């Protein structure tokens, strides 16, 4: 049984507009039998935080192209992407790439 987790989620680069314009969110994930991984977190975000138009944030079970995911200030590619097992108090950032000049 994995204990409940507290996470700090951040959305930026315009991704926050899908979450009522709020950039910083402190969320509590309930305890469950297996440890929480990123794939489950994304499903949880889709079920609990995304209200409308999930296709602007997700594609299949991952984020849509153009959104960069950072776990504790590192590219999630370095951390195992969807398989990364979340730890209590992890900081997860979803940043949309900007296209302005």
């Amino acid at each position, binding site marked *: 049984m994995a204990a409940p987790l507290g996470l700090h989620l951040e959305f*930026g*680069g*315009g991704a926050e507009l899908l979450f009522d314009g709020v*950039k910083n969110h402190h969320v509590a994930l309930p305890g469950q039998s297996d440890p929480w991984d990123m794939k489950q977190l994304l499903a949880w975000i889709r079920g609990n935080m995304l*209200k*409308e*138009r999930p*296709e*602007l944030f997700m594609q299949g079970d991952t984020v*849509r*192209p*153009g*959104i*960069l995911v*950072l776990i504790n*200030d*590192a*590219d999630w*590619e*370095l951390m195992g992407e969807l398989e990364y097992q979340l730890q209590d108090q992890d900081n997860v950032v979803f*940043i*949309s*790439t*900007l*296209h*302005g*000049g």
Partner: protein
Amino acid sequence: MDDTILSLKTQLLEREREIAALKKKLHQMEQGNSMLTELQEKVTNLSPLISNVTLSNEDIMRYSRQLLLPELGVKGQVALSNVSVLVVGCGGLGCPLAQYLAAAGIGRLGLLDYDVVELSNLHRQVLHSEVTQGQPKALSAAQAIRRLNSTVQCVPYHLQLSRDNARQLIQQYPLMNYCSDNVPTRYLVNDACVLAGKPLVSASALRMEGQLTVYNYRGGPCYRCLFPSPPPPETVTNCSDGGVLGVVPGIMGCLQALEVLKIASGQGSSFEQQLLMFDGQEGRFRSIRLRSRQIECVVCGEKPTLTELQDYEQFCGSAATDKCRRLTLLTKEQRVSVQEYRAILDGSTPHLLLDVRPKVEVDICHLSTSINIPLASLEDKKAEHITLLKETISNLRQQTKSQVPVFVVCKLGNDSQKAVQLLEKMSGVETEQITVKDISGGLMAWAKNIDHSFPQY
């Protein structure tokens, strides 16, 4: 005797140096003049930069404050004067970038932009001015640069970078900057840089945020390593849609200039595998460690499958300009022109005018008869807004005793079409008794064709 010979030799050497410096100056001025008067409408092969080995007295005076830095020194300054740098996009990022590169003594500066200067550019594109409105941005920027430092060779390109001209252009510039604002050009510049083996100093800015990375440099990733697939076109926001505070691209453009100067003077950049994020709202810089070059990347990987430039507008499903997209979601029968709507107003036909822009835009300007319900509120079915809508419709129904005509308007006629589709799907007695159409071209078409005193933004 020996002393005299030595002294003569020294004097001769000094004279030779002076002559070389004068020749260089003459050449630069001749080349500078012809370069500037000739706006490049297509890519040609430029004569190579003449290589400098020393600094003139004037150079020493001009650059003295940065020459004192051990990180730069004479060696670094000479290196700067021998480098050609291409700036893709002379907008909010490109202007401060070009300005600081010219001030610092870069040898040759290619300035590329397909657009012309507009009044709405001036809050952030600080090389342009009221008097250069309507001129090609590349030319406007080059003129400003010339006033600042006439020893820099400025090459203005008034053209759209494409798969046909990108490689020829990029092979003439060892250092590339991406300062443009659309996805297809971003992939195009990335691929062309990888194929030419050149680093790409890339930045972007929107609203109050900025990002910066140096791609394809010292084992770091290219843009495709991070983003193998382009974002869906509907998720891309540019400055004319999303807005931008002018100083934010200014900050990012200055950071780009810093990285270019470090690379060009041999110090190397700090951002080859880093993403710098700037949040102007929270006053925060953050540096993120990025993945390394990806083995399976189609352009920079071990077995690249992309060895020629491709059709980037097709790849990205969007156009290579920052001009707004025109959606066509509705049939002709579901739309009215601004002229037709004008006739409805003139005929005092009872109807509802629904403005679906965000409140911040309605505050800039609106038609006095409209009610405002932002598209996002319609999508979320916000209770207070739906109630307002239904009440207004039912009041109008008292007057018309038949279907209530509803006209939806936004800035350009894209969101209004989405709103028409939403309203048609909406259930409830009130919304079933309406005929809903959108005003094609939106308020900007109204300002252009009907009421010239209506503000444009």
